[in-house]
């Protein structure tokens, strides 16, 4: 493929990664930023979202779109609820100690994975997208005969991929407004700034934490439902979103939601675009080192302020 269309295609693919990553990472970011908890099981909540989506959409056998739409609501709610239970049973009892929560969430990760393996099985399972048309894309060239429209081989996108990007944007904008305008958003920010002070003002910290943990997990699940018609549900699928979200949250600056979203776009796009220029594994190495070096020279992240 010519450089131009190739670049654009990689950018489109990058945008898709970025959209889903933004949702998942914002989920991790609120948990990280507000509760100071490194939730290693975040990727498993993502995975559960995908698995539940598969279950709902195959059980409700009316029309793929109906099942999918239902999953879009059911999966995040169920996963969020499960996360709240985990918070109440485990994290709260650890007093949200940073080190111990890491270990405890590793334990949760094992439990969730194994239960999924035993119930859902080890196979990758597809979910039918509600709609999916391939749109071949044109390319414009200034050739000998002047301005020309060509249809490069393989240059296209599907309607569903575009819809995922748009839907993610809508959700993120909505979430942003919710956190900026609502009383709960205010409470969350107050808790994030100063836990002791929030307690002194009578904010029920533990309830806030439970909701935040549920919200974070729900967002991961939502991201998974959106991606599962493109990439199938599998019990080990949680590793990559965890790693990427983790990176995005740090690069974006701890607890900064706009920063997280910017970083998701940056990481998603660069992951796609670097692959245009280098051989795939080398591209991965370069992208990984890039993240490392950004943090070495800007430990507070690209969009964050230096921590005191």
């Amino acid at each position: 493929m010519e450089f131009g269309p190739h670049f654009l295609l990689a950018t489109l693919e990058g945008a898709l990664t970025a959209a889903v990553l933004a949702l998942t990472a914002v989920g991790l970011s609120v948990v990280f930023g507000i509760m100071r908890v490194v939730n290693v099981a975040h990727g498993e909540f993502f995975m559960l979202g995908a698995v539940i989506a598969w279950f709902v959409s195959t059980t409700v056998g009316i029309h793929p779109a109906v099942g999918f739409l239902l999953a879009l609501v059911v999966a995040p709610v169920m996963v969020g609820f499960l996360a709240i239970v985990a918070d109440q049973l485990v994290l709260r009892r650890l007093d949200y100690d940073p080190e111990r929560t890491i270990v405890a969430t590793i334990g949760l990760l094992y439990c969730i994975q194994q239960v999924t393996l035993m119930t859902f099985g080890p196979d990758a399972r597809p979910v039918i997208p509600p709609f999916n048309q391939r749109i071949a894309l044109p390319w414009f060239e200034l050739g000998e005969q002047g301005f020309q429209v060509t249809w490069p081989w393989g240059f296209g996108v599907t309607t569903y991929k575009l819809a995922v990007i748009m839907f993610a944007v809508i959700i993120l904008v909505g979430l942003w407004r919710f956190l900026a305008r609502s009383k709960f958003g205010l409470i969350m920010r107050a808790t994030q700034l100063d836990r002791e002070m929030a307690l002194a003002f009578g904010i029920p910290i533990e309830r806030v934490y439970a909701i935040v943990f549920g919200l974070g997990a729900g967002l991961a699940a939502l991201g998974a439902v959106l991606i599962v018609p493109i990439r199938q549900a599998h019990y080990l699928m949680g590793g990559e979103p965890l790693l990427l979200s983790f990176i995005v949250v740090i690069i974006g600056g701890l607890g900064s939601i706009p920063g997280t979203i910017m970083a998701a776009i940056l990481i998603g796009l660069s992951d796609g675009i670097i692959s245009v220029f280098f051989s795939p594994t080398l591209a991965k190495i370069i992208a990984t080192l890039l993240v490392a070096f950004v943090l070495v020279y800007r430990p507070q992240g690209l969009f964050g302020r230096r921590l005191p």
Partner: protein
Amino acid sequence: MKKDSTKLLSGVSRRLALKSIGALGGAAAFSSIPGFTGMVHGQTDEPFRLGFQVHRTGIGAAYGRWYERTTNAAVARINSQGGIDGRPIEIIAEDDGTDPKRGAEVVEKFATQHNCDAAFGTLFSHVVIGSAPRAGELKLPYLVVSEGHHVASGILNRYTLQPCITDVKSQVQAMAPYVHDNLGKKVTMIYPDFAFGHDHRDYFSEAFARRGGTILEQIAIPPAETAFTRYFPKIPRDTEVLYHVMVGPAVLTFVKELGEFFGGSGPALFGFIDSLEAVDINSPGLEFLDGSYFWEGMPRYQQQGMLAYDAEYRDAVGVDANGASVSDARDVSTYAHMFGCWETLHFIRDIVSRAQGSSNMKQAMIEAAESVTDITESIEHPQGNKLFNGKTHQVFGHQYITRVNGGRLDAVHTTSIEDTFYPDEVDYTQQEF
């Protein structure tokens, strides 16, 4: 022989009887070999303890589940026929997490804790390579069902064998003539960027070039990748055949995105079924695969008049004519590989019988195996005739090329065993025990 089979026929169902007639076919293959004395000459009540390394968790879990089912079916059959050398098989199955470290630990456990007579069943190459040194040191016969080129390349040891599944080097080089003559002369390869993929890259390119074809581009996909579309633009426009192989949980995504990329106007596709093992060929998004070609170790869909013992084998394992579980049509098996477990268990029965009476049973098993040459198609070996090379500890067998045709895979070509040959790279018989 006759006496044995009549003994078996008394008091067993007709189905079992049919199977044991098949067993006779298998036995016949060995009857010419000296030392073969039969199957039901029990000497001890002690069970034959067989360590089974299973990928129950980790990336190999989809394979592991079916390896386990196939193994259980084979064990049931062998035990109903009197076991191994009169001893019932006791399977000691342990999860290796598809991890070489745990794999090695499990092999140790088989040898030193459970006092197993042999270990078998491993699929993923890194687990094999991580575990084999321990098996060799502990002098435990280790029979793998991995299709890796590790055994025949000579890096392992005298106690490690791959007796019933052809290795990847043979598989891919046997594909080259058919691809060249029927699909196209200009090939682009897509494969995972790790050892298994590199074997495909190296051995196919070599064989294809020998045949006179050209490899246009080799695209290695990083491991654990979940999105593939961005790599496809690297496929050159004049590609006639796209050769693809992928493993791991994202295989379905890979194939789907490949279809979406070309939107029905791409080159001919030739793939290794590894990309779609345990995946229903009729999954949503795979429609475009219609008309594309696959390598299969053993055809997933039952073929008319091809493999004489296929139906009976399916029946024993619990797989329907479409290669899915008889109890759940959505539960697709890893049919192209799992026959290796069935055949390996029968192979073990045979070599043990022939090693019978030796004071050092484990060493004698290896020696017996090394003297095996022809393996005849039978219910014990339903995948087809094979030729075992005692020096390289590797078997060579027929390979199948199938074509997707209206939602099923129809066989279009069977390679000869000779197509899979390559010069020996090791002579394990020269190594000390």
